[in-house]
């Protein structure tokens, strides 16, 4: 009934990209190329110097199904570097995805995947196994990843119970519950770290807390891959609802978005995905905060584009960062969280600064 004006300019009404915005299609293509480049670099570089020709002959043999070369080269390239680069891509994609979703969930662009306390639970689980596992008890024998995921579920249950007591999963309620429970669990973690038997154990714990992709194996890629893929689909299915949440709960309700249910679903999806990611890689900071932010600045806030672009950008970023972490120092591997913060914080500040100047 409203279509009294003939839609001559129909395309204009679509999601726009004028002057400063990069078209999403171009951005996706660029990121795709960047991801291939980053993965190539990640596989070519390492603490052990191998000529690129040898690296790629190993990969080519494997990809064409020929028998692998004997010796350690195949092990280094095919069993360590390739799965690790792929895991970096998956974890980066997942963090970018969760970051975008959480920022919409609590309607705050400064939210990150760890805001809801899930990672604190995961860290507590992992650290408990590392520290207490050696002295036996019920935790011994439980893998670190499994313990981390159980910890994530425990934190999830606590935050859920706290958030629903107010009835509505409102952003404020979620953030308060998440931050409160997160700090509470982090306190336990610190206590366990202090109780760690010796320096090496403490170092192991700290490394875990700062994030590491060192445990990557081919078989270990299945779970994070499935989680990231399902998470992407689940969030994309709700992309329009996420857009509506940006404008406000009442607006969202008025266009038929079941706001409370959507928030619950988002909370579940982001929690499970965060739990899986932290379980495989530790809590890698800054990616989930920065990546959606950058994507929003460059390509706009429409979640139908923002979610896949954040996933792609996160993948590229983490592959690059992990390569730097592995190769920056000659004899030592840096915790990846250190590098994400060192690169990420200035990049974010630069972008924010540019945005403030513009407006």
């Amino acid at each position, binding site marked *: 009934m409203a279509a009294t004006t003939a839609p001559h300019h129909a395309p204009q009404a679509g999601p726009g990209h004028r002057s400063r915005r990069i078209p999403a299609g171009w951005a996706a293509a660029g990121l795709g190329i960047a991801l291939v480049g980053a993965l190539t670099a990640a596989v070519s570089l*390492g*603490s*052990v110097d191998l000529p690129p020709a040898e690296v790629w002959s190993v990969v080519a043999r494997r990809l064409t199904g020929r028998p692998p070369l004997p010796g*350690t080269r*195949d*092990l*280094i390239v095919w*069993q*360590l*570097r390739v*799965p690790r680069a792929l895991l970096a891509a998956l974890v980066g994609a997942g963090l970018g995805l969760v970051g975008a979703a959480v920022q919409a969930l609590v309607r705050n662009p400064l939210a990150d995947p760890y805001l809801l306390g899930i990672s604190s639970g995961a860290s507590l689980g992992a650290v408990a196994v*590392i520290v207490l596992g*050696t*002295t*036996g008890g019920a935790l011994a*024998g439980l893998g*670190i990843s499994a313990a981390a995921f159980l910890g994530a579920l425990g934190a999830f249950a606590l935050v859920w119970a706290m958030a629903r007591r107010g009835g509505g999963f409102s952003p404020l309620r979620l953030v308060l519950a998440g931050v409160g429970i997160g700090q509470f669990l982090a306190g336990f973690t610190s206590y366990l770290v*202090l*109780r*760690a*038997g*010796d*320096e*090496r*154990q*403490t*170092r*192991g*714990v700290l*490394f*875990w807390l700062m994030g*590491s*992709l*060192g*445990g990557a*194996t*081919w*078989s270990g890629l299945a779970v994070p891959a499935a989680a990231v893929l399902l998470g992407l689909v689940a969030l994309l299915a709700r992309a329009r609802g996420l857009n509506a949440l940006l404008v406000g709960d009442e607006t969202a309700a008025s266009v038929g978005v079941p706001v409370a249910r959507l928030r619950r679903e988002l909370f579940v999806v982001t929690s499970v995905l965060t739990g899986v990611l932290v379980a495989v890689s*530790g809590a890698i900071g800054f990616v989930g905060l920065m990546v959606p932010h950058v994507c929003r600045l460059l390509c706009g806030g429409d979640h139908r584009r923002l979610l896949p672009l954040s996933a792609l950008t996160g993948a590229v970023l983490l592959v690059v960062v992990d390569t730097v972490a*592995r190769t920056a120092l000659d*004899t*030592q*591997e840096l915790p990846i969280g250190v590098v994400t913060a060192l690169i990420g914080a200035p990049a974010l500040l630069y972008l924010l600064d540019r945005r403030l100047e513009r407006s």
Partner: protein
Amino acid sequence: MRSRVLRGLAAAAALLATTACSTDGGGSGSGPAPEATGAGATAFPVKIADCTGHETAFAGPAARIVTSNGSALEMLLQLGAGDRVIGTGFPPGPGTLPPAIAAQGAKVPVLGETGIAREKLLGSGADTYVDAFGAMDLMGGAGDAPTEAEFTAAGIRHVFLLSTACAATAKGPRTDLAEVEQDIRRLGAVTGTSPKAAELVAAMDARTKAVGTALGGLPADRRPGYFFFDFDAGTKQPVALCNRQVGNAVMALAGARNVFADCDADFRPVGWEDVVARNPDWIQLAVRDRGSEAENTKAYDEAERFLREFPAIKGLAAVQQGHLLRIGSEVTTIAGTRNADTVRRIAAALHPELVGSGS
């Protein structure tokens, strides 16, 4: 003979370490230097110096001793001075101490599960504090260590274990147990148990020299590559045992070549890639003592299962050939008389044709 040359070198190194670390020389004139290990009781006064040149004088034997960790405690127990230890930090875990002294060790009051709190230490009533940590080494949890002035005011003489406290400042790789033996002699001197110290050191010497003789100055190319797999420091990120650590000396004396001998530190987190590239011939499944035979076996099994299942590692020759040594972490890396036994066990496994497995 080669072994004689080696022995000479070791003696020279010991002498160097002695002069470098205890700069007292014969300065006091009246008392024999602690390294004088001749028969007879210690003559007081005794002066000993730490690796920064700071001297501490003892007019008579230490009567009330606090030790900072299990390593110092173990030495004192073996010296027969255990009844004078009135407290310890970082107490040895169950089963960590050799059976002969375990019962006595268990009776020593624990002043701190980790580092001893400042006021507890100062108010302990001790006249001597044996410190295994360097002044700058705060990783052990002793963040609030008293100052030298406070030690003096409390009437506590502050004695360092050179083998651990001075590891970080050591100038070159550690290839023998001279510092460990020197620590035993120094503790013998300040507790008036020099004859026992001499006896312990002689026993260590005898064992390592027997191995040295049997190996007959093994050339570098006949020393198999050896990787100390610190299972409890985490499996995502291997921690390399580097050339400043006591364990490096243990490996060197046992006719092994530490694959991380090029790293100038005590421990350092590296990547699995580095381990694979160094392709060790032997891997020590170094787990920390779990307190019972059954638990230890379980931990060794876990460590071995990890190596046999981690794709990049299971392809290594050491794993395929089952060159996996089940030798605990403490007896290798914690300075003490048992280092010499470990030398012998490793040598017997690596060079069965040269070193008999019997005692």
